[in-house]
């Protein structure tokens, strides 16, 4: 099965079986502005839910990207390292950050679905 979930920290996670792809949301990229640098974790690193998994820097400032759930990094998107503007252009597609092998898929259940996330963003003003 495949499911798209969101965090209150503006990451998205798309589950596909026991793996999941992670990125930042369109709202996040619009708030950051021009992305000029991305730092991705090494393959094989274990990331913990809610802890730093990657770094994204805009023209103004550096921000941490948190892991929506725990798991092992099995792929990273080198294309956004070479061309960080892809994160602005297509945050939910070509601008993905990394792929995890899930430690516990049940962690996904506590995250927001798209409707809940859009409502959450609207409430941010």
């Amino acid at each position: 099965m495949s499911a798209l979930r969101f965090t209150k920290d503006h990451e998205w996670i798309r589950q596909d079986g026991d793996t999941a792809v992670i990125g930042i949301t369109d709202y996040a990229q619009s708030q950051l502005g021009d992305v000029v640098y991305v730092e991705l974790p090494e393959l094989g690193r274990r990331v913990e839910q809610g802890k730093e998994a990657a770094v994204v820097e805009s023209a103004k400032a550096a921000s941490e990207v948190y892991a929506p759930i725990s798991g092992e990094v099995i792929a990273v998107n080198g294309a956004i390292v070479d061309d960080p503007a892809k994160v602005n252009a297509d945050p939910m597609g070509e601008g993905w950050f990394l792929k995890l092998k899930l430690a516990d898929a049940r962690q996904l259940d506590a995250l927001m679905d798209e409707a809940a996330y859009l409502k959450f963003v609207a409430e941010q003003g």
Partner: protein
Amino acid sequence: MTLTSAIDDSARLRRTPLHALHVERGARMVGFAGYEMPVQYPSGIIAEHLHTRAQAGLFDVSHMGQVRIVGAAADLALEALVPGDLRALAPGRMRYTLLLGDSGGILDDLMVTRVAGGLALVVNAARKDADLAHLQQRLDRDVVVEPQFERALLALQGPAAAAVLSRFAPGVERMVFMSAAETTLAGKPCFVTRSGYTGEDGFEMSLAPEDAVAVAERLLAEPEVAPIGLGARDTLRLEAGLCLYGHDIDETTNPVEAGLFWTIGKRRREEGGFPGAATILAGLATGPNRRRVGIRPEGRAPAREGTAITDPAGSPIGRVTSGGFGPSVGGPIAMGYVGAATANEGTVLDLVVRDVPRPARIVPLPFVATRYYRG
């Protein structure tokens, strides 16, 4: 990820006369030096930066402090507080100088122009209240200090600035860098100087608050002109190697280590008579302990303000005071202070970003050649 929200307490922030114009044009407003200011418009910092270098950008810098010092001896009076040679300043000429504390630290950096009846000053927004108190307290009694904090200040910067502005005020294209004139723009009286904070040719225009919107709208209607926010203003000035007060210079830095010794006029070096003169001139003889330098990281990671600088063996040698991405450079750039022994161009060092040392090199400033109009 962590996102900083726009404005926490907008009720307590002041607004410039152009506030509604910024909002109408979709600016993201942020708090800066007590003002609600546009950090960027929808096109974004990089596009705004590149537009300014290619054509012309219009900046609202009305948050900066405009002050007049009125009196026949205004130049002599202000020389007691700054190291610039103001007596040598011809009518209609402008100079960059420094308000110095008694031990030679920098209280603010400012522009001084000789105008009819005295001097016109432009000081930093975050310092203007402190500067005004300092001037009122310390200046000789026979001059009058007149704050004009309500006045608007617009900057038009970029290679097309002169062509654009001359459509409204013919003759401004012949003004040289660091000169001033009284003129009329779109029917509004305007005090214009050929100066700026981007490294580009350009002008700054002081206007009555009620005239600012009309002038800004007329300039923005020209095809070469786009509105530019504080985000691009910062990347432009960093590429131009210009100091940002409170970051690259402050009360703990002196003009010699900051690379601003050139602001101390020859006569002033010989005569002294400015705050901290003994310390500064003595320090000049022995050389500063540290120096402000340009730094170019080898990789792509920006090194932000506060980043530790070490030598290749890992020993601390300094700290980054301004750093980020330079859109015209196409990569990260930084300024900072390092020990004088390690401040030579070409010196290899490490920038410790997120606990990882990353190689970088000392390079000459500016990062992008300046294009001031000198006639």
